[in-house]
């Protein structure tokens, strides 16, 4: 990759225009936009990065401000609406040869005034323009003097985003839905959510909300309660008996089959159905259990069934047929689907519990349950779980926490969680762990089960465990827990539930179809080869290639969700499946599976990323984060009490919380 010619990104000026020894700079950007076209420049809220010296900076700045003003400025504050227009017109005057030197002063003056704006879009957009005027003044003056003509050699691609929106795997337009709530427009808010999230009641409740880790309000005090606001928008609709307003486009003739009615399957089906495609979902579980892992893996005290069902029913009402009780690979084969439909989307999820690796787990002992996810499913479906009175769950993820909490509700006298690391290191969400604590779950941290203890009838009586301590840092620098010799002890119990993870059961994919599967049991899909300066492929947080088209090696077959990403979250599956739905649409219409420019720039920005935890955000921290109501006390986990624990915001509370949002929109533009 070419060296950086100039950069003001992050307020560090690197200027290699004069020649001499080049100053090094590297940014988390690919060398090409799409594996082919080189990046010439990047312009956005934090400055300018020039890779090509041929980029005409005044023209780029004028184009950037024109796009900002005419496409993105909301017009809802005076400096933003008028000031960016003054900037746009001044820049346009300059590059058309009619500018004056005073225009440069006006640009600086207005850029300063834009600090008074209501939100972040206009001030952040003035940053690279100001950089351009300051650091490329000679180029501007050349235009003003009439010594220069614009060159149209570069193509510009822009993207309107925000840190939260960027971080959300489904890329929900979070500032927009929060702004709608702030304006008491809950229906509009929900419509915005649905543009990227067809399961709002779910992701308003059980989402791990990565968005909130990228909320700029966090740089002031605490992040916005983005997830609960989504719930507020979603609850408003059913609490007011409103009918969802979506109308699918006219019915198309090409058809799509989806394997699995989980978050990915349902999301892909929803967006394809809105486009008019007849979609049929094949689901192994019986009717009433649509939702995949949400239905059978998330207990009703976190996700009320009737609301999940409502979300599923709404998706179905868009023209999606869900065929229940039908396991692909058993009741109908994948080749049959392939033959019957124009496209197939594989979203079987990851429903297979992983083994624990403890002595005795394969002996068929009474009281040793198959796995956490299986236990939750049986409990949810009202079937015997095989659980006794003293339950021991092994694991540290959300599933393990769900198991200990469900065990209480299924009548366990004691519910204990064994985890080999510390509480702080648990992958489970903090609030879930706290919830379990409040309900009386016992925790044994930093212990490793070593042996299952049984009586003469092969009935479990306990788990022998050993205490763990952190050892020396390994090659990766991470201190691994190691057993403390002689610290063995026995946790008495009659039931052991291993909940240490799950993976996909892909046995329904015949080996001869040509669909490749990774060693982690995920389906391989094609991707756009984006590489960094060192030539390495860019990867997402799960280690998958960054920009995937989600088509498998078999034409017409796509894959998504946990079985493609690896076991992750509802929101990740929804985002991934929404992307798949768009690619499937292109494939059906054009015969090509590719990523649109908007999707490529979206992925590139996510890699960058948009949020900067070190940014100083000047704001008065006088409005504290609102907290939703919650049912407290052990009674909430009494026998068969699956009443929802979290109560959401009142609407006025939601509005107050929404008023805290800084609306951190910003515009990035790439020159190719």
């Amino acid at each position, binding site marked *: 990759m070419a060296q950086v010619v100039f950069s003001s990104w992050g307020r560090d000026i690197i200027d290699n225009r004069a020649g001499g020894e080049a100053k090094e700079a590297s940014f988390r950007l690919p060398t090409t936009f799409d594996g082919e076209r080189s990046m010439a420049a990047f312009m956005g809220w934090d400055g300018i990065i020039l890779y090509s010296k041929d980029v005409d900076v005044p023209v780029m700045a004028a184009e950037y401000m024109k796009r900002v003003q005419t496409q993105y400025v909301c017009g809802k504050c*005076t*400096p933003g609406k*008028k000031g960016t227009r003054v900037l746009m017109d001044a820049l346009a005057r300059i590059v058309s040869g009619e500018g004056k030197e005073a225009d440069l002063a006006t640009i600086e003056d207005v850029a300063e*005034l834009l600090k008074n704006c209501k939100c972040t879009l206009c001030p952040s957009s003035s940053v690279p323009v100001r950089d351009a005027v300051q650091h490329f003044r000679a180029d501007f003056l050349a235009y003003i003097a009439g010594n220069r003509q614009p060159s149209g050699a570069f193509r510009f691609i822009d993207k309107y985003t925000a840190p939260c929106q960027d971080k959300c795997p489904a890329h929900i337009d979070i500032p927009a839905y929060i702004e709608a709530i702030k304006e*008491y427009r809950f229906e509009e808010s929900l419509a915005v959510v649905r543009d990227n999230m067809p399961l709002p009641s779910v992701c308003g409740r059980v989402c791990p909300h990565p968005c909130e880790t990228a909320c700029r309000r966090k740089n002031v005090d605490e992040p916005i309660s983005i997830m609960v606001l989504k719930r507020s928008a979603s609850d408003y609709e059913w609490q007011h*008996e409103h009918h969802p307003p979506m109308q699918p486009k006219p019915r198309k003739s090409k058809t799509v089959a989806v394997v699995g009615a989980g978050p990915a399957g349902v999301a892909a089906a929803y967006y394809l159905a809105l486009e008019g495609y007849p979609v049929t979902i094949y689901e192994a579980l019986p009717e009433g259990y649509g939702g995949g892992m949400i239905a059978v893996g998330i207990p009703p005290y976190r996700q009320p069934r009737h609301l999940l069902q409502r979300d599923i029913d709404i998706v179905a009402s868009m023209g999606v047929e869900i065929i229940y009780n039908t396991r692909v690979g058993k009741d109908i084969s994948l080749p049959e689907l392939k033959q019957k439909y124009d496209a197939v989307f594989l979203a079987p999820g990851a429903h297979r519990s992983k083994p624990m690796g403890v002595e005795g787990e394969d002996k068929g002992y009474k009281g040793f349950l198959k796995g956490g996810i299986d236990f939750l499913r049986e409990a949810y479906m009202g079937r015997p779980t095989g659980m006794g009175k003293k339950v021991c769950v092994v694991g540290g993820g959300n599933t393990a926490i769900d198991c200990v909490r469900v065990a209480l509700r299924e009548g366990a006298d004691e519910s204990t969680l064994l985890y080999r690391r510390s509480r702080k290191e648990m992958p489970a969400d903090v609030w879930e762990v706290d919830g379990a604590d409040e309900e009386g779950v016992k925790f044994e941290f930093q212990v490793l089960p070593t042996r299952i203890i049984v009586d003469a009838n092969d009935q479990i009586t306990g788990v022998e465990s050993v205490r763990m301590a952190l050892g020396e840092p390994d090659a990766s620098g991470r201190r691994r827990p190691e057993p403390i010799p002689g610290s063995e002890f026995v946790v008495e119990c009659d039931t052991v539930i291993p909940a240490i993870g799950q993976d996909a059961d892909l046995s329904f994919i015949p080996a001869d179809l040509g669909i490749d599967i990774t060693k982690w049991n995920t389906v391989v899909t094609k991707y756009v080869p984006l590489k960094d300066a060192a030539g390495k492929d860019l990867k997402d947080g799960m280690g998958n290639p960054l920009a995937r088209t989600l088509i498998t090696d078999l034409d017409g077959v796509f894959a998504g969700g946990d079985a493609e990403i690896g076991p992750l979250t509802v929101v990740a599956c929804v985002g991934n499946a929404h992307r798949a739905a768009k690619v499937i649409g292109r494939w059906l219409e054009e015969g090509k599976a590719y990523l649109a420019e908007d999707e490529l720039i979206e992925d590139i920005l996510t890699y960058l990323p948009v949020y900067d935890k070190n940014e100083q955000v000047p704001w008065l*921290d006088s409005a504290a984060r609102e907290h939703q109501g919650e049912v407290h006390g052990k009674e909430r986990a009494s026998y068969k009490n699956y009443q929802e624990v979290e109560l959401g915001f009142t609407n006025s509370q939601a509005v107050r919380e929404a008023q805290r949002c800084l609306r951190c929109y910003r515009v990035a533009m790439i020159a190719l």
Partner: protein
Amino acid sequence: MVSLTIDGKNVTVPAGTTILDAAAQLGITIPTLCWLQKVSPTGACRVCAVEVEGVDRNMTACNTPVKEGIKVTTQSEALTAARKKIMELMLVNHPLDCPVCDAGGECGLQDACYELDAVRQDYSAVLERRPIRYDWSLLESDPNRCILCEKCVKVDHEIVGADAIAVVNRGEATIIDTVDGKPLNCEFCGNCIEACPTGTLISKPFKFRGRPWTFTVTKSVCGFCSTGCQIEYHSRNNRVERVTSSDTTYNNGNLCINGRFGYAYLNTPDRLTVPLVKEGGAQVSADWNRAMTGAVAKLKEIVAGAGPQAVAGIGSPRVTNEESYLFQKLLRDAIGTGNIDSEARLGYAQAQAVLQGIFGCTGASATIDRIDRAQAILVIGCDLNAESTGVEYRVIKAATKNDARLVLANMRNVKLKKYANAHLSYRPGAELALITGLMKAILDEGLENKEFIAAATSGFAALQGALASQQLASLAEAAGVSEASLREAARYLGKKKDVAVIFGADVIRGGGVETVKAVANLALLLGAPMAENGGIFPIEQKNNIQGMLDMGVAPDHLPGYRPAAAPGKDLWQIVAGIEQGTVKALYLLGCDPLATFPESDRIRKALARLDLLIVQDIATSELTGLAHVVFPGAAAAEKSGSFTTPDNRVQCLSRAVTPPGDAREDWDIIGELISRLTGAPHARSVAEVTVEMQEASGIYGGSCTLVDGRCSGLTKAMPAAPATYAFSAATVPAAPAVEPFTLIVGPIGFHNGSMSTRSANNLTVSPAGFVEVASADAARLGIVDGGSVRVTAANVSITGPAKVSSRIQAGTIFAPVHFRDLKASSLLPANATSVGVKVEKA
């Protein structure tokens, strides 16, 4: 409480207070432009920017809450410069048509520029002009003048709930426009005009009627519905040219179409300007002396011949308390008959007697501002938008801003539905079954207010017993709703501290006394009377029905509700008396029974039998054509006196203009008649009548004083609440008869009574009556939107254009009550708002 320093002064305010409000407490004014107290802060104009020590940017005072210990600066060189530059930006390409702009002289932008010293323009941008919306009714929008303060959009959305306008487009092209770009289609309340600080949104009828400062502004009370909104008449050359209201009023400056635009009825060419007398079968103009002499002579002749009981009078909820008082004095004292009643007999009089018996109060148990903060609200048998728009605004506020749960029980899908947590769309005539079902569900779920019931009621056990023998399922079936929906509604309403029960015409007029008792029982179950924020609120469409009853315009009681020694004939007995020939003379004061009364065909025939029909009204009509004597009276803008709302607020109206031609204020006409009949001197001023009326009623008091230019100070004494509230015996509801079609007759938001159908303004958006037919029924009957429909009940038919709609249940049709041409209520039996009918394509 939070303490902070503003410009070096300490202040302590409740947490959550904005810097702007905290500064106001110190008497520090921070400039604002887009801030409007009654809606959520927008933060658009940025001129309220202040400095907070330690925060590296300006914060806007209007939407920034205070924080303990902060030091705020509201005036500095930097702030002045920033505010000035922002104003300059605001003025970039602002049109310079101030000389002919409607807002000239009352423009918030002009004021702000002047105040912030924005006297020059350093910025420029390419000029783009946006088209002016001349194609809207009643309003005109010039987006070029708009400063995007969003006040209009917020008032439209947050207060009115019409959601007709929005911020559209991006960048400099951003404007306020209709949501769909089509011509404005809303309630035409014009509250957005009032909110607009510039000449962007203007009133078409007012455009070019004069410069704002050339009008005489008279603070008065609206004479349409019974919300009792405080208004300002702007008049010039003895014509009212616009009506406004201020945000500092009881109604927060919010009006409806009638309040803001209905004034055009004052200027209708149909106004009566001279007295008329019938001579040889023809009506001729007469002077007052001739008309009065004739009327008095004829009255005396009838009294002499057939006794005073041969005379009857029907009063009006449109006239003032003073006029109502004089009217009953005329009939009772000057003529000697107790035959006096009014349209309150269609339901409100009986309903209020029931409420008085149980709650001790006349009308509502509390003032309507208590609704704002109720936790749960039931609106039953009432389209608030049409019956009392101002109360609807309060319900919307409670539901949206203050987290109230709202249950709407209405046969139709009325506007409030979108705010309702539950909509009980019951079968026509099933009000009693529905209310009984709600009570049953409340008791089943144990949601009644046990504390209140135990402490302050009697007769609960009997009610409980009566309800125990009924099945929720059968009540639900009779009401035409699901059992689950009744239980859900019960959960929304039950176990709340502050409950408001609001009921309207379908209960009051349609349901009858037993239904009103059931509503009262329901309110008692919910503890509504003891609610600090809530109560029981009967809703009436016409402004002074409460004051009229207070003044004894009723056969059974005198002013102040003292019982009449010998009750006279009520409305229907008067009609029967005319039919039987025992009533020979009838005095109709501001009352046109041919326009909107049930059984109007029967009444028309009866009127023809009278020896003397005196009609005192403001405009010509079919009715005045039948009269032997016509006295031209005055409309609300043309008189002084007082009105009383159903929630017992007594408010003075002030005369803005004089009545047209020879027309006179009604108290003056009646007063002179009394004088001519009795020889007693005629009151010289309305103030004299006020004092007399206060003494006679025993419940009115106070004296008029001007507060901020508005006359106030009159009071009405409320009786103490009873020691215990008695539950009424439960009536077992019968399932309403199944009709192939049921016609529902009621008001619509665009009109009030028949008065607004004389307003050219209202008629531009709602010109004529219609028959609303459910789409499924329309398809079945071959009726198309706009096509003609005939509706027949018994032997009366009406014909009107169809409005095919999804807002009503199949099997029901709806027709607005207001239109003389449609005569929808002529199909109704005496005390009903619905009737079984035959519907066909005409």
